[in-house]
């Protein structure tokens, strides 16, 4: 037996920074690498007999799949068929014992399975019944994503004993049948209750809208331009969900009196600004949600402005901890690292830029440049769009983000990657534009 029901992955926190500041300097930057290992290595794959892998009890999990069944899903008809097949694959990937439900989404939410206002418990029989029930998925109606999330929330609330709760949301269109404020109200209500991965199929959905949902609910967003790619994508998403071992982990950051935490961003595997997600956690400390973790590693960029001190002084600029809330209201500290500030008059020390900080600063700029460039392009400002995507090409080239570089090449002709000289391509496909925009936040790690 490799894990116990109460075990969670071992978390480690590593800090990468140049702690040396010149006289009068106040800004401290650090990359915090959080790595979880040990608990989730057996997760993901159900064994052949349907029992949990590796013999050990898995962390309890609940999953709700929300499938868009609006009228447009029938145009082309293969979209609905592929969505049905992909959902079936996702159900097959559920390991025994996982609580689950399937919701069909239009301008309202309908429980497709089990349909009794509760979650089913996965086993051979319920998986089969669920797949049979998918035949009831038919296109027809509008799109009001807030109602889908509300229904998922209600279903999850029937199992308060389960900490790892994850939604998979598929849509092909815009959230046209409710007001943005309605969706926002739902997001405010369900935040922290469960996490959601969003997938947009085709090209008629809105990248910003889905990103807002996935960011708020600490999940991923991606495009599945071809409906035929859905099944594989759903399998992979569900495997990752099954590998999650611990939920509701927060990054707790303490900063000294009179210091300002300028920003906290996840920078790998994708850029997510967490600055606004702070919740107070005692004097001078705040918690930033990171969702649930399997065996994985994520990087965060922390930027702190500290009060200036004289040369020769040392200060703790931040204490970064990973914390897990306990049922009694306290929190368990899983690991911690220190961000330091040391003032020196040695220019060679204070002018050195930490390679990790430089790398991720560039990645965040790259992500912002793409989003601004694509927004300008939509608004018809081709000059601005060209300048921004040129900058993006230069940054992607510098950083070595080949994935993003290739996506950029589908939208612009690269004349000079080093200088960032580009021309907009003629006849750029909508799918390529949306793929670039959706994946603009994906980062690559620096070689350590």
């Amino acid at each position, binding site marked *: 037996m490799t894990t116990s029901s109460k075990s969670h992955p071992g978390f480690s926190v590593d800090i990468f920074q140049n702690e040396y500041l010149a006289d009068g300097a106040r800004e401290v930057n650090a990359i915090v690498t959080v790595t979880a290992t040990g608990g989730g290595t057996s997760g993901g794959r159900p064994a052949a007999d349907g029992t949990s892998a590796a013999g050990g009890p898995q962390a309890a999990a609940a999953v709700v799949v929300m499938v868009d069944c609006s009228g447009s899903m029938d145009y082309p008809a293969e979209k609905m068929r592929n969505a049905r097949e992909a959902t079936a694959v996702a159900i097959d990937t559920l390991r025994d014992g996982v609580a689950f439900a399937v919701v069909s989404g239009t301008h309202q939410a309908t429980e497709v399975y089990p349909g009794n206002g509760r979650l089913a418990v996965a086993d051979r029989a319920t998986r089969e019944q669920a797949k049979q029930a998918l035949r009831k998925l038919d296109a027809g109606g509008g799109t009001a994503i807030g109602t889908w999330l509300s229904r998922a929330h209600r279903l999850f609330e029937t199992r308060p004993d389960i900490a790892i709760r994850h939604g998979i949301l598929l849509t092909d269109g815009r959230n046209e049948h409710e007001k943005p404020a309605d969706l926002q109200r739902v997001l405010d209500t369900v935040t922290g209750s469960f996490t959601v991965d969003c997938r947009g199929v085709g090209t008629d959905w809105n990248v910003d809208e889905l990103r807002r949902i996935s960011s708020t609910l600490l999940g991923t967003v991606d495009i599945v331009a071809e409906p035929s790619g859905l099944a594989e994508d759903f399998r992979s998403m569900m495997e990752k969900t099954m590998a999650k071992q611990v939920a509701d982990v927060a990054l707790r950051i303490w*900063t000294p009196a009179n210091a300002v935490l300028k920003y906290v961003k996840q920078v790998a595997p994708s850029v997510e600004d967490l600055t606004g997600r702070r919740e107070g956690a005692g004097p001078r400390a705040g918690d930033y949600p990171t969702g649930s973790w399997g065996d994985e590693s994520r990087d965060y960029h922390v930027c702190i402005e500290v009060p200036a001190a004289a040369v020769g002084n040392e200060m703790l600029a931040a204490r970064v901890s990973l914390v897990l809330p306990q049922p009694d209201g306290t929190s368990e500290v899983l690991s911690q690292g220190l961000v330091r500030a040391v003032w020196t008059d040695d220019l060679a020390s204070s002018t050195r830029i930490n*390679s990790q900080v430089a790398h991720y600063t560039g990645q965040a700029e790259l992500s912002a440049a793409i989003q601004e460039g694509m927004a300008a392009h939509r608004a018809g400002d081709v000059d601005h769009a060209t300048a921004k995507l040129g900058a993006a090409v230069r940054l992607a080239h510098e950083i070595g983000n080949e994935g993003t570089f290739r996506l950029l090449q589908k939208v612009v002709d690269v004349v000079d990657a080093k200088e960032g000289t580009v021309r907009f391509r003629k006849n750029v496909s909508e799918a390529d534009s949306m793929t670039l925009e959706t994946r603009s936040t994906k980062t690559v790690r620096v070689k350590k």
Partner: protein
Amino acid sequence: MPQQTVCPSCAEPLEPEDVFCGACGRNLNDPDPDPGPDSGQDRDSSEGPAGTDGAEVTAPSSCVHCGSAELAADGYCESCGGVQPRPRDHQERSLAGVAGVTDRGLRHHRNEDAFAVAATSLPGGEPAVVAVVCDGVSSSARPDEASAAAVEAAAKSLLTALEQGREPDAAMHGAIEEAARAVADLAYDGTATSGGSLNAPACTYVSAISAAGRITIGWVGDTRAYWIPDDRVSAVPYRLTEDDSWAARVVAAGLMGEAEAYADPRAHAITGWLGADAEELEPHTVSFTPHVPGVLLICTDGLWNYAEAATDLACFVPADARTDPLAAAQTLVKFAVAAGGHDNITVAVLPIDPPAIEPAPTLVDFQPFRTLPDLPSATATATATATAI
């Protein structure tokens, strides 16, 4: 109470808002000042290197920067984040025949110097005193660990060799080799260095043996030894070491005059050190037999940067240095802090009291290096004996 501008205990400059001294942790609102820190007390636990002994600084119960009582176990204030005084920030050690003081100074965030003083007996029963001072090279990785490792290895090696009856000169060579090995080993102990591609851990070295009336000095780098006689009228203070530095090299090669060489930005670049990346270890040793009373100083550049010439440095050595070496060491450290404290400061003082051979001897002493460049060769073992006429 009147505004204090320096700490009454340790002369650390103060900010107006300070409640406690940032160097020694003294409560500045305490109207009844303690007697000077550890004045003149002999200590028992004097054999270990100063760098590993936490006896000098007692852990304060509140933050030395903001007065908050919330101090984390890892040495930072839970309120202002300020680092609390560490054991190595200021240390003093005194025993019969030798005293040493080290201080972080004002401009470095930690003390990368280390020292040890110790006493033992030769096989014949004569007392022997040793002192080792090392200065971690700031541009190397973990310089504080380098100096502590060198001091510990050298002190142990010196004591063992002397107790076994080895000649001081051989003991000195052995100690430098042991220290060099200890520092080089740090580069391979698997400790990751934050901040990337720094040089291997490194430090400079100087040590002294005083036994049976004879003084033996060994050094690598720009840590120095000075001889300061009590009577500075009829005897001349002089420097015993020649730096492994760029300036010393160009002067020795006749490429530049001394003033020009020392004004060059490269002047203090060292050409010899202990560390895994040292190309070739060239330990320098020199021995002599003083015939007048005085003190031997060994120190880091944190001190001699403010009084480079032996005659200048002698001005700051108290007249009673020989009878109160700890007070002399404290005085010299305070002088360097007051002069700017730009680097860590370490000095060890060894009182030398040769048996009076003749009343009021007339002495011809060593001449300082600065006027006699052909003095004991810095590259080979040189033995020079100052002879009373």
